[in-house]
């Protein structure tokens, strides 16, 4: 027996319904960027903030033409140094917990904390569970960025992995435009404990 006209109609409607549901699911499901995005933890300057495996307090931010680090390093740059003083520790696990992400984001441009000072910076240093390490991060920025419009809404991003996807990312808003450019800053060598 050949299928009746009603059966064709029901089959057609069912097919259209399934396709519409699939289209809605496809267009409303979180895309890959959202699925894998870091879990942003809003923090403020001077206040402690905690993520899954990172606990940090950003004490101060300064801008200078030259920096002298605790090990005597005084690298020069064609731009300016943004020096961040912070305390940071791991929370649950210190295996593989380095301060891998220390990024200053100004507008859509990101600058990573310089590893040029060697052991005088806490950038990329291994963290310890429950014991804070206090020290500086140095960022190398072009001179004109500090006075640009985006400088007022810059942010400092910290995470315990060089790849912060699907893990906590502490985000500290920083107003670089409000900071006066100092000639030289002396920073201390990283030390244990919170200053």
């Amino acid at each position, binding site marked *: 027996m050949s299928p009746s006209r009603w059966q064709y109609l029901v089959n057609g409607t069912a097919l259209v319904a399934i396709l519409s549901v699939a289209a809605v699911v496809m267009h409303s499901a979180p895309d890959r960027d959202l699925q894998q995005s870091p879990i942003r933890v809003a923090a403020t300057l001077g206040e402690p903030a905690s993520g899954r495996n990172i606990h940090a307090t950003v004490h101060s931010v300064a801008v200078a033409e030259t920096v002298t680090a605790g090990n005597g390093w005084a690298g020069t740059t*064609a731009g300016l140094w943004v020096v961040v003083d912070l305390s940071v520790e791991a929370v649950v696990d210190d295996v593989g917990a380095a301060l891998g992400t220390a990024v200053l984001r100004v507008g859509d441009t990101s600058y*990573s904390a310089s590893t040029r000072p*060697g052991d005088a910076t806490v950038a990329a240093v291994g963290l310890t569970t429950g014991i804070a390490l206090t020290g500086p991060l140095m960022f190398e920025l072009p001179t004109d960025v500090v006075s640009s419009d985006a400088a007022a809404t810059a942010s400092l991003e910290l995470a315990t992995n060089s790849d912060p996807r699907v893990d906590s990312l502490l985000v500290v808003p920083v107003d670089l435009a409000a900071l006066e450019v100092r000639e030289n800053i002396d920073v201390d060598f990283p030390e244990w404990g919170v200053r």
Partner: protein
Amino acid sequence: MTEIPLKKHSVSRETTRQLFDRLPTTWLVTAVAAVLLGVSAVFGGLDEAPVEAAAVIEAGDTHAGSELTLTVDQALLIDAFPEQLVIPQKGNRLLVVRAVVENTTNEPRRLSTVPLTSSGAPRPQRTVQADVLRIVGVSGQRAATPPTSILVIDDGSDKVVVQPHVPVELAFVWEVPQDDVKKGDTINVQLLDRVLISEGELTYGGLYGDPVVTASLELVLGDVGAGVSE
């Protein structure tokens, strides 16, 4: 059950069918290939593909690549950089190419090198290829060898991350046999550009193809003996 009526073929159609069955497969394949080739020829498929020659620049010229702007100005030989622990094998010296590098993208870019094993052979690549500069025509070096280390000239740090729009002066270092490479030799430096294939679909981040040479320049080797790079 409805009867499916047998189709009635005309006589001429039957004969065509039989002829087609007897046609050798290779003839068919050849014919199809010829048609495809012909169609592509109509749209310019057989034209000579243009090969863009890499620009030849002078020492000190600024070359803007897609991500990095490079100014190579000097090449010299030096015994070692003991403070940076860049010390060549016995019988070798260091060949240093000095360049100012500016990152024109909006994120930091790590410049990687090919470290040598203890026997002096390049260690097998595990991560990103060195893809900024390489030297050609230096005896004792394989063709187009990436540098063994890259140093920031200002402070000698060896993990080079070029920050966006902050030009930095770098030393690209190769190990060369001291008897074969002498002051006054001419070397060829190739500037490379990496090519983004696509944003990864299954993997995260961009996928890059092999670096391509976008410019080359000739440098005459200087020699500073044991030290003092100026």
